[in-house]
């Protein structure tokens, strides 16, 4: 078990390294850099630019150095918790991101939690009562959730909340708390606002999770060991929970690593529509203006989330399933 852990942790390092290289390369791919974009913008507005100032800025930002040197500086900074400097905001990335990162984490974590809590009982119900009216109903709802684009759902929700209830559900907190320090009232306000984006972002995830759990559980329910358990005289509920449900959990858990980035990237559009102060809109802007360190930090954060999510799901799987735990190192 320990070697399994060590191995998994060891594999994470080169993975993150390759991702960081990839992220950097992708950011550098479009022609020009932040300064040239900035210059073009200034010239388009008819303003003169002092070449000496440009040269100074270039040197200041390290943009005159070779690419590998830039990458090395950036990566070295990342290792030390220094996320670099945002050109656009003229501030260190850490300060630019600020609360947004935590709000994103809170939002996404709540969404994942929502997906699991809602889909789990519905999935079990649908599988054990296959082809009942309830099953059909949930299936219909699920397909609706899958088929409807998130941003559309967000718009509809915004509209009806305004028209019917007369409340604005945009944002993640009441306007008076924006740019204020954290207080109990602010936390409560965030909690009040959280449900709408969670609902919007989580619907499709929930729907697909229900389908997956239902399919897995149906597979497991028809397996021989379930009959064995019944033949022992176990009550149907205990059979369900002890055997097939445990088996059906595997893909459920293996999905954690997938669901995290899915949720995070899915929330970008919704955040724009609902004007949520999360990282999504900022990432979009940073990519547009080639604010390389800001965009790079975001992308690395996403990568880290994915890799850690995978790690956590692997750990859970190994803990839950002896086949993975005991046969991990054997291959034929």
């Amino acid at each position, binding site marked *: 078990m320990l070697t399994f852990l060590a191995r998994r942790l060891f594999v994470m390092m080169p993975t993150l390294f390759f991702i960081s290289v990839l992220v950097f390369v992708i950011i550098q791919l479009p022609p020009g850099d932040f300064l040239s974009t900035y210059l073009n913008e200034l010239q388009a507005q008819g303003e003169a630019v002092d070449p000496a100032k440009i040269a100074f800025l270039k040197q200041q930002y390290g943009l005159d150095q070779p690419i590998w040197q830039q990458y090395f500086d950036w990566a070295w900074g990342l290792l030390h918790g220094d996320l670099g400097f945002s050109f656009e905001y003229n501030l260190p990335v850490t300060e630019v991101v600020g609360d947004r990162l935590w709000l994103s984490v809170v939002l996404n974590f709540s969404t994942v939690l929502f997906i699991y809590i809602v889909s789990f009982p519905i999935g079990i119900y649908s599988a054990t009562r296959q082809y009942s009216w309830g099953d059909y109903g949930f299936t219909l709802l699920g397909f609706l959730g899958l088929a409807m684009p998130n941003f559309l759902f967000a718009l509809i929700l915004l509209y009806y909340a305004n028209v019917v209830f007369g409340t604005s559900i945009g944002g993640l907190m009441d306007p008076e708390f924006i740019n204020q320090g954290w207080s109990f009232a602010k936390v409560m306000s965030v909690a009040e606002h959280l449900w709408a984006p969670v609902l919007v972002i989580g619907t499709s995830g929930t729907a697909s999770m229900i389908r997956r759990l239902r399919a897995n559980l149906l597979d497991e329910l028809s397996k*021989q*060991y379930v009959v*064995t*358990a019944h*033949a022992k005289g*176990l009550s149907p509920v205990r059979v369900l929970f002890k055997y097939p449900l445990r*088996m059906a959990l595997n893909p459920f858990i293996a999905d954690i690593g997938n669901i995290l980035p899915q949720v995070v990237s899915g929330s970008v559009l919704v955040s724009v529509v609902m004007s949520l102060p999360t990282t999504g809109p900022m990432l979009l802007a940073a990519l547009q203006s080639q604010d390389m360190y800001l965009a790079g930090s975001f992308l690395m954060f996403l990568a880290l989330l994915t890799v850690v999510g995978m790690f956590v799901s692997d750990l859970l799987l190994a803990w839950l399933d002896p*086949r993975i735990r*005991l046969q991990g*190192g054997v291959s034929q």
Partner: protein
Amino acid sequence: MTDILRIRDLKVEFVLPHMRVKAVENVSFRIGAQETVALVGESGSGKTTISQAIMGLLPKSAQITNGSIVFADPKKPGTRVDIAMLDRSGAEMRSIRGGRISMIFQEPMSSLSPLHTIGDQICEAVRLHRKVGTGEAKELAREMLELVGFPNPKRSLKTYPFELSGGLRQRAMIAMAMVCRPALLVADEPTTALDVTIQAQTLRLIKDMQSELQMSVLLITHDLGVVANMADRMVVVYDGRVVESGLTHDVFVNPGHLYTQSLLSAVPHFDMGPDERLRPLREIKPKVDSLLTFCGDKDSSGEGDVPPSLALHPAMASEPVLAVRHLYKSFAVRKGNWFKAEEQEIAAVADVSLTINRGECVGLVGESGCGKTTLSKLIMRAMAPDSGSILFRGESGQMTELTGLNEDQLNPYRKRIQFVFQDPFGSLNPRMTVQDIITEPMIIHGIGDTSYRKKMVLELMELVGLDPRFLNRYPHSFSGGQRQRIGIARALSLKPDLLIFDEPTSALDVSVQAQILNLLKDLQRELKLTYMFISHNLAVVDYIADRIAVMCAGRIVESAPREQLFRNPVHPYTQALLNAVPFADLDHLLDFTKIVDGKASDPRRWPAPFTIDAQSDPRMVQFAEDHFVRAARADYQEIAI
């Protein structure tokens, strides 16, 4: 003697949205105290439905619409419970199920949950039906594991099913069923998925447990050999009805119903004369047409000239088609982790030499994992051997070495060796019509034009006894036996010199098996085919093969003409195999005292001249004419066969 279970006029129907399907009707039989009753029938006969009805495990759509299943528990004298009336998942049924009536299943691989330890699963059964604490339950489970012959019961409690072999899993399953000391054990095909030696051990275990716990057994099986050896009485079911029942002895000696008679005459047994044929329910008469007349005899002037029904003369058989010499293949199994990998070499095929002459059928017998399938793959060159040589007689009539050839060079030989697979369901592409399936090999090898191929397919269909009108159907509309015949037709479409059959009948019912075996025999005679027949079923091999090689742990340990091998087996493994086969013959019952637990298939434990271990690696030596055995004896001449 009081009856434990009495079934009267049982009728079970499956209620589907549009119709009701009768699965079982008018079934009545009884099981006495400490008696073994066998429920015999082929697939689809309803025997499993009957067992499910007894256990209260019928699927939701099934309903007991008539009759009664009265269970008289010997522990509570005087009480009678009608299981048919009980709520299937109610408390009363649940206390009977697993507590008083237990069940073991066919598939030891999938019947146990892979996520829970053996101990957990057995203790669960104990604690459900007895008021005991955790410690006591563990102790009971340990005792039971010891009773069913686990080598280290205490440690085994903590093992997971996937860490155990198939035989041990079935023992764990039996322990789980027995741990509450039931009055009746329902065993649904308990040994079908096991090797013969393991099967014999398991059967003996069930017998031992029966006398130990004084319980009754309902044995559900299609294997008449198992019935003859285990059952006091037998009930034959066909199409959901009981067609015959009575004492096993009476039914075997004097079968009254036509179906029972045909079942009994469809099972191959060892005393069959050279010309005696199995009698399947429906015989297929192969019809040979012009295109199919085989190039069996190279010396004759042309393909069409050979009279199709020319019986093979022994003198013609001398020419070898395939000669395998000292073939080795091992697989590396990696154990360990990233930092320290332990490579372990497992010899799948070791020092195998085998010659197949034109027109003969060589049988290859062995238990699962002995390397017989690997050997067939090596011969097909689906895999490359580590060392050794495979000589094959190609179109030129010269023996060609196949081992060094690359894919392009192999291509001309590919069509000359064809394969028929074990699983008739998995080996046919469900999205291709029969026509496409049979034509495909000819297209791949560019044989003939469209009209030739069409004619060939028609002839092949006739040959295997299928109506040419079925050509546009898909495999799913055929039964297992019909599918296997399509597979045979496909293999024959290239007119191969050598046909390899890998367990072609093991997935089929006995009557269908007889049909296929007879078909194969007829085809061989009519078309002068050469077969290599791989099977774990000794009786089947005995019926079809001229010469038999016994394989164990990657090596051929004995090879001889069929009469000799079975009459005079020399190698301890062959003897163990023969001792373990249950015959459908009351005069040759299994001698359970001769069946030893432990490993007859472990080469290190074979007695002196036969032992294979680090010190001694014996070669094949000649024992009698055409009879070779792997032994280290200076007085026998070492000979490569």
